[in-house]
């Protein structure tokens, strides 16, 4: 390799971000509406019965979970659609014949998907201020966890987009895997609220570590040690990068 083609990365990143800004209101309206609904249902209706979790008002307690729900969904859908659409429309040939390799293509698509997901998550955070009083104990670590999670799940979405041969396949993993993992990962409750057996089962869910990390950055509360959360998300990033490198090296589902 003779160095990264940064202009190539910039070209991909720019096009992906322009696609986001062209439909900015649609991109933001849906997650904001969902968040408002979650606050109404979980915050007001259920929260009325659960006054606090480990000393934190329930409405505020679910904010990190809602942000992670958005980050994970948006990361996967943006990255998978970003790379799948050129495959679908046939324009993927451009990426394969130009002097950009797996690093440039990944940085461009995954970088844009992660940035979009983080921007939407921050809008969700701003929205939550309208409903509950939230104090962020460690803002730097909140951004670090959001960034690492967005990166990890954008990489996963990118792999899904490379793997998918149809729009149905593109939808199935986010719907059948990501959503259940988020809901069972403690987005709306603490794992310590579960009976010991189910708490053990919940700790097999990788998303629990991400949500726990973000929640710690907000309130100093965590279901698992923060170091374990960081290790889990870093491991995910490394494994996904390895898979993507393999896909580009072998040309699987890309080249004949």
């Amino acid at each position, binding site marked *: 390799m003779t160095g990264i083609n940064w*202009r*190539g990365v910039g*070209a*991909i990143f720019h*096009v992906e971000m322009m696609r986001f800004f062209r439909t900015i209101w649609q991109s933001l309206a849906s997650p904001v509406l969902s968040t408002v609904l979650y606050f109404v249902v979980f915050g007001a209706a259920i929260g009325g019965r659960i006054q606090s979790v480990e000393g934190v008002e329930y409405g505020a307690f679910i904010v990190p979970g809602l942000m992670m729900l958005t980050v994970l969904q948006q990361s996967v859908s943006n990255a998978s659609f970003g790379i799948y659409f050129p495959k679908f429309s046939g324009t993927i040939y451009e990426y*394969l014949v130009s002097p950009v390799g797996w690093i440039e293509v990944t940085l461009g698509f995954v970088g844009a998907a992660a940035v979009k997901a983080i921007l939407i998550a921050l809008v969700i955070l701003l929205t939550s201020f309208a409903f509950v009083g939230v104090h962020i104990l460690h803002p730097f670590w909140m951004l670090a966890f959001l960034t690492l999670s967005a990166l990890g799940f954008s990489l996963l979405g990118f792999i899904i987009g490379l793997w998918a041969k149809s729009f149905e396949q593109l939808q199935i993993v986010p719907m059948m895997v990501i959503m259940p993992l988020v809901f069972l990962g403690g987005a709306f409750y603490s794992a310590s609220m579960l009976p010991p057996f189910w708490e053990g089962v919940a700790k097999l869910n990788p998303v629990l570590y991400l949500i726990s990390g973000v929640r710690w950055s907000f309130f100093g509360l965590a279901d698992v040690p923060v170091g374990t959360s960081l290790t889990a998300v870093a491991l995910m990033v490394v494994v996904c990068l390895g898979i993507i490198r393999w896909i580009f090296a072998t040309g699987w589902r890309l*080249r004949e």
Partner: protein
Amino acid sequence: MAAIIEIDRLSKQYGSGTKALDDVSLTIDEGEIIALLGPNGAGKTTLISVICGLVVPTGGTVRVGGHDIRRDWRAARKLIGLVPQEIALPPFESVMNCVRFTRGLYGMAPDDAYLERILRALALWDKRDAATRELSGGMKRRVLIAKALSHRPKVLFLDEPTAGVDVALRREMWEVVGDLRREGVTIILTTHYLEEAEEMADRVGVINRGQLLLVRPTAELMGEFGRKTLIIDLDEALNAVPASLMGRGLELSADGRSLRFDYDTRADRTGIARLLGDLAGQGISVRDVSTRQSSLEEVFLSLVSEEAA
């Protein structure tokens, strides 16, 4: 002229066992225009796809500008522009953004003045802000050419560039290719329109079943393999070819006013002088004589059928 593309014993065999390319070797000089001819499935597009990086070869090597396409792929690809056979464009992007994007992918600094020159040359400047989905098929094909030229490639691959476009646009495309030739761009094109190869190419390569049957200068190929037809217009109509001239391969027109005689330009004796003498001996008066060169299509069919035999 220095060689810009060196293909050495290139092979591509698919998992199914199909040999799309079989031991192909070819050297292309800088500034040359070479046309690859062959029936569907002959291996033309596979050859282009391997050189450009879309298909992984199973054997052999390719060097572009001295750079191996696998080991030194970044440097090799920087020199190449590809206009694919299928029209594939992002439907919601404007023409200008599409071309800017491709230039960026190739690591080139923005240069809208140069892109404007390309779009004007391809009669696309007025459409620069239009989304590609709003363009006609011919315009979309020209956008593909503009994208392929956006990074000033030294080698341009045109995979059936005029497939499905009307005659007027085809002529326009030929003019574009002529302009590029003058700028020193090496062009490799595949085509089904054989007059296209005849019109533009310095050399013609014939591919069939993954093998490069021959590569010759177009004029030489036409001269060597080309058959000519002598058309003899008669003063008075004949009812039939005279019995004494039977067996010479003469063909009488439906109105009886002309005779056609096919002859081989490579033969020591074409038989024209003897035929004209015999016609005079039979008292058949000749009003005019003309010849017609066989087209490259006929040359191509003759080559492929020879190979099949």
